[in-house]
């Protein structure tokens, strides 16, 4: 059998990029544990995150024109083998996830040192890298079951990371436990859905699934699978009535973990929802159109209002921002529910813009916690005077959260309103603007606390170290930059939306 082989053409490094995207951070995790050195742990984590960011940028550059990269793991061709499939939609999310990680890690050094005991540092960074690997893997893969595997890698490490907050506040343990239960239910629903799809089609490759579902049309099994997948991923994405794990998890997790997760984890779940709604299932199916219009949109609007109102009454800044995240996820789902090029563009660009906005805000709060020892308003009040730079960055992030013109948040909300108007949904457009006014109230609450009150007496005065301040400002300035220079984000989001709306026809081999 060996005699009739054609000589193997060596693959170049560029061709290996899709797997390197996941492999590079993945190798860091066991290496950190194996070396067991605190200093090396951080260096490895940051080095590999930065490398992952460069890889993501290179990949996005390759697929921005609408092309698709397919990588076969182990040389086994899809649909039998596992395929990594990069197009504009997931390259954009890869860029967000790896970029946030590369900026959060320099900030992590001091913040982790102040919040987590030294003996846990190496394992903390190992878990962090596993979480990053899982998130990148979920996005990069083109195999539905592989999504589940990577989802579990990221979830299990997330539970551990959240529980690390217990050194500051014991409630982190119950928060992590709640998330473990809810997250496991979500993952189980997701895998039940995959099982049904496998039963109906006999394949797990997404492109192949799309073909076969399109061929056989809707039946009970496919519809049930759709339901399970939407509920399962909805739990992970904190879709409004399924959001209960989120506020505690974000509030009690270490600041670094909150900054990273808030900007990436729910966004990745939204990406999976997008992928399944548009690439695997056809939006033209009646059941999916109905789900989007009569279930997702009302829930999204409910999230925008209910979560924003709850946020207004919070007395803990981290918890306030957590509820605001639930509201912002509502905007993304609203964009998805519009089922139009503009709506989808808005959802994808908001996924990115909200990611950087929330990263800036949570990193800012983390800096306040670094000095004040807590994120309750009575601890951090008046810190606009003692920590002017951090507070100013928080205000910039807050403006972007509201969607003030000139900030990243404005761009996505503008597209969202346009999407609603295109559809002739005037009330929805009004609701988007009205819910933004609620954001004005809670952001003002933050500004008032920081600037118009006198600081608590027993608090260490002074700014945080530059290694924390600079990453915060990179994020804050990114909120402005992506509000003014919209070519990159909008261009990528439009290409992604186009690819997704093309449905399975865009995924055919």
């Amino acid at each position, binding site marked *: 059998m*060996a005699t009739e082989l054609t000589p*193997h053409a060596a693959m170049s490094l560029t061709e290996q990029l899709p797997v390197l995207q996941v492999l590079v951070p993945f190798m860091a995790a066991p290496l950190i544990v194996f070396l067991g050195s605190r200093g090396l742990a951080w260096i490895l984590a940051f080095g590999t995150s930065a490398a992952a960011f460069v890889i993501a940028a290179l990949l996005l550059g390759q697929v921005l024109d609408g092309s698709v990269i397919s990588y076969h793991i182990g040389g086994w061709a899809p649909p039998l083998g596992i395929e990594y499939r990069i197009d504009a939609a997931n390259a954009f999310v890869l860029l967000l996830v790896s970029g946030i990680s590369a900026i959060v890690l320099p900030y992590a050094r001091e913040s982790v040192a102040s919040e987590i005991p030294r003996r846990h540092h190496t394992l903390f960074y190992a878990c962090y890298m596993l979480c990053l690997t899982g998130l990148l893997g979920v996005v990069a893969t083109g195999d539905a079951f592989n999504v589940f595997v990577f989802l579990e890698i990221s979830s299990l490490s997330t539970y551990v990371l959240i529980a690390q907050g217990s050194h500051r506040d014991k409630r982190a343990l119950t928060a992590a436990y709640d998330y473990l239960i809810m997250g496991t239910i979500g993952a189980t629903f997701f895998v039940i859905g995959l099982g049904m799809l496998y039963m109906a089609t006999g394949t797990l490759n997404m492109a192949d699934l799309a073909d076969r579902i399109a061929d056989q049309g809707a039946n009970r099994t496919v519809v049930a699978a759709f339901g399970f997948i939407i509920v399962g991923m909805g739990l992970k994405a904190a879709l409004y009535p399924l959001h209960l794990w989120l506020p505690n998890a974000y509030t009690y997790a270490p600041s670094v973990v909150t900054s990273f997760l808030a900007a990436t984890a729910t966004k990745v779940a939204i990406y999976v929802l997008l992928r399944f709604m548009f690439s695997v299932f056809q939006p033209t199916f009646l059941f999916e159109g109905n789900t989007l219009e009569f279930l997702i949109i009302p829930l999204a609007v409910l999230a925008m209002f209910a979560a924003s109102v709850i946020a207004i009454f919070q007395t803990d800044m981290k918890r306030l921002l957590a509820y605001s995240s639930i509201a912002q996820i509502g905007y993304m789902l609203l964009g998805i529910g519009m089922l139009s090029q503009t709506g989808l563009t808005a959802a994808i660009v908001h996924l990115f813009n909200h990611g950087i906005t929330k990263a800036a805000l949570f990193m800012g709060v983390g800096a306040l916690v670094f000095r004040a020892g807590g994120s309750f308003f009575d601890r951090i009040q008046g810190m606009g005077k003692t920590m002017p730079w951090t507070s100013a960055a928080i205000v910039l992030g807050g403006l972007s959260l509201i969607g003030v013109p000139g900030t990243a948040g404005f761009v996505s909300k503008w597209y969202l309103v346009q999407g609603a108007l295109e559809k002739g949904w005037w009330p929805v457009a009004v609701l988007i603007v009205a819910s933004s006014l609620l954001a004005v109230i809670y952001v003002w609450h933050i500004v008032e606390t920081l600037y118009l009150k006198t600081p608590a007496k027993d608090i260490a005065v002074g700014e945080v170290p530059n290694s924390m301040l600079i990453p915060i400002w990179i994020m804050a300035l990114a909120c402005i930059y992506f509000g003014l220079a919209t070519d990159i984000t909008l261009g990528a989001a439009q290409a992604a939306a186009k690819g997704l709306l093309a449905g399975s026809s865009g995924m055919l081999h």
Partner: protein
Amino acid sequence: MRHHLILRVVTKLLVGSIILFAFYVQFHGDFSPGGGFQAGVIMAVAFILYGIVFGLGKAQAVFPPWVVHKMVALGVLIYAGTGVVSLLLGYGYLDYDAFAPHHPSHGQHYGILAVELGVGVTVTGVMVAVYYAFAARPARLSDEEW
């Protein structure tokens, strides 16, 4: 603590053959039922049995916890490292053809052996680590109080 004489003698006799059987399952996994997962568990059983009969302290003297933790990571490194080697040889990630370009079925063979070794090392480490984690918890009641 010189009771359970039969258990102690039998354990001493068995530990060696359990380890030998673990290696058999490990390296025959590609032809007969078995492989890294099963071999890892069998290997761990040898140490867990030793720990149950002779006490946690003795087991940890033979197989210290820090070695166990390194093994957990090492196995993953062996598995992923196999993929990295195939990648450096100009093939796809975990494409075992890379290990014997002129005779791919041999290459597949070598590749499977390498990744199964990684699986075996990690599973041994994880099983023993789980046992240590539970066994090392302080007892709520001392033995006399039962």
